[in-house]
């Protein structure tokens, strides 16, 4: 029934008369965009979840926000909606122009019907939304018998900020700014996907120099996040040495970001039609020297992380995501790669500037936390090489092209390999050249369900490190 396709996302959009549903399927790098329509009064569609488990939460998200009904969906529970607005009010439904009758203060989401697990000695551990550390808010409900986890159920949506509705009516520059804030750690990935979608809708391509610089920015984002996460994973199992070292390297990296690109997290460095600013004079040499320095530093450090028996004790065999599960859930990025799914848009459906570069195939087969660390280390090395090549062959010329006003109703689809994996963006323009619909599909939609699976049978104290090694974005899916 799935024809060997990876289910890569779905979203709804509506006008006064009709509800439309889009779904993306991937087959070895080729994307198939499917759409279906229904009159607004019925808005019933057949659920894809029975065939593609990955569709579960995105369908529930579309139902909460649009009021779409998914026939045969196995899970009738709300997802994005907590208690801030009533059940029969849908923020993206065309009939809902004003604000909902909000309660003065939003009550806590107390009556969400968590699945129950019964059995002798089975107990529940509720965690969150406020966590003990410095992380995003979400709720986790563990069922455990002794130490082993029988079941983990996630309850997200706490950082739902209404991004999709905020996007409506924005101009292209405003959308790029918003896209950079879908998930702060993926500022480049989401901004690039959104800009690519808008540029395709307008029928232009950014100049070659801008595309090369975008590639450079995306790789810088990848390196920074991997460095941070590798250290944080080590820290979670008590190996502070690696944490301090990677945090140091990451900090230096971010300072160079500010110096060369004007922002430590590279926000607002991409604009529709190109990039916000060119490389300052002399920056290319500094960056090349940085790459060489980082290579010198990470080699011995990664060697230690690779071969440190106490670390292996905690990471090897911990939180295994089987290839079968990774496939069924459509995982891309380091999570999929660590379990043997080698998909990478930069290689399998290359776009500029990657179409002129050799992106190495990075995969592992173990699917455990250690494999996720290894994949990230390999990606850091690969990114350094890619950045050198980009700087080496940096085209000259303009860094932006003017974005003509797209035709009324023009649509665009953006697809880039963010540091976390395949990142999509869907854009439709209205008649005035403003945004009528924006949907950013973060890879985390598939990371969170994977975490629920890979934690099964693990002990509760291993949850933090498993969670860190997966590192799904909350903001990126709560929207």
């Amino acid at each position, binding site marked *: 029934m799935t024809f060997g396709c990876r289910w890569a996302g779905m979203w709804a959009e509506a006008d006064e008369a009709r509800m439309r549903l889009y779904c993306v399927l991937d087959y070895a790098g080729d994307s198939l965009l499917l759409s279906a329509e229904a009159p607004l009064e019925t808005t019933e569609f057949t659920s894809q979840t029975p065939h593609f488990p990955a569709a579960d939460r995105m369908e529930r998200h579309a139902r909460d926000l649009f009021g779409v009904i998914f026939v045969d969906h196995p899970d009738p529970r709300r997802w994005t909606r907590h208690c801030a607005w009533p059940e029969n009010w849908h923020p993206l439904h065309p009939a809902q122009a004003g604000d909902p009758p909000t309660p003065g203060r939003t009550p806590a989401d107390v009556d969400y019907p968590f699945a129950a697990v019964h059995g002798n000695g089975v107990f529940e551990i509720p965690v969150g939304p406020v966590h003990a550390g410095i992380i995003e808010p979400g709720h986790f409900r563990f069922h455990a018998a002794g130490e082993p986890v029988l079941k983990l159920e996630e309850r997200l949506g706490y950082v739902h900020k209404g991004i999709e509705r905020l996007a409506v009516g924005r101009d292209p520059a405003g959308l790029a700014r918003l896209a950079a804030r879908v998930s702060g750690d993926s500022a480049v990935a989401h901004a690039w996907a959104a800009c690519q979608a808008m540029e395709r809708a307008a029928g232009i391509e950014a100049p070659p120099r801008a595309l090369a610089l975008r590639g450079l920015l995306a790789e810088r984002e990848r390196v920074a996040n991997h460095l941070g996460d590798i250290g944080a994973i080590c820290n979670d199992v008590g190996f502070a040495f690696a944490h301090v070292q990677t*945090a140091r390297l990451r900090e230096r990296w971010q300072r160079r970001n500010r110096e060369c690109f004007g922002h430590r997290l590279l926000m607002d460095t991409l604009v529709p039609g190109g990039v916000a600013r060119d490389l300052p004079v002399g920056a290319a040499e500094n960056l090349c020297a940085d790459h060489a320095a980082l290579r010198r530093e990470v080699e011995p450090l990664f060697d230690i992380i690779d071969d440190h028996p106490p670390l292996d004790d905690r990471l090897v065999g911990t939180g295994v995501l089987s290839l079968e599960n990774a496939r069924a859930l459509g995982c891309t990025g380091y999570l999929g790669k660590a379990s043997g799914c080698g998909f990478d848009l930069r290689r399998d459906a290359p776009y500029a500037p990657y179409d002129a570069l050799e992106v190495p195939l990075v995969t592992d087969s173990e699917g455990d936390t250690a494999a996720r660390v290894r994949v990230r280390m390999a990606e850091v090395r690969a990114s350094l090489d890619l950045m050198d090549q980009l700087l080496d062959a940096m085209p000259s010329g303009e860094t932006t092209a003017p974005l003509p006003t797209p035709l009324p109703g023009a649509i665009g689809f953006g697809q880039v390999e963010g540091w976390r994996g395949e990142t999509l963006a869907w854009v439709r323009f209205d008649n005035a050249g403003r945004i009528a619909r924006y949907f950013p599909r973060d890879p985390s939609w598939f990371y969170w369900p994977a975490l629920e699976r890979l934690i099964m049978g693990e002990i509760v104290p291993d949850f933090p490190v498993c969670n860190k090694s997966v590192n799904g974005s909350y903001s990126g899916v709560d929207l």
Partner: protein
Amino acid sequence: MLRILAHILRTGIVTEPPPATDDATLEALGLELRRAIDARFGRSLALRFIDAGSCNGCELEVHALANPYYDLERFGVGFVASPRHADALLITGPVSRHMETALRRTWRAMPSPKFVIAAGQCACDGGEFGVSYASCGAVENVLPVDVKIPGCPPAPDDIIRGLLAALNLTAENPHIRVSRIG
């Protein structure tokens, strides 16, 4: 083990005084923070961090405070796991409506006197997200705020200066708006 020690020796000490954008010497800023904390909080300032709806950009910069360049802890400022152990609440993000109650409850769980520090543009004025069906906007729409640290996100050195402002020492710093010192 030897490799680790060798690596540490090779790296040396990178910790630096928190970089300031003003002319005050960097080291002085750090020491000032240390002295202020000694005087007011008995040698330590315990922060409870809460992300009330951020895009996670601010959170990354709060994390950076612990890296060896800033090493916030050397000034006696640390993050605690429970609001009951906290002197101040450090909040990022606009307050999403879904986090409103959790935020209020966290604040209520803190012993008085308590500071509220809003870090980041979103926490200061709603930022890119503002007020909507899904967002309450600025933290001050939900809780009384003592100090605002703007920036999207504020860099770690901005956050350190904001903490100083929380201690009523650099109220004249134009970058930091101190709304109320409790």
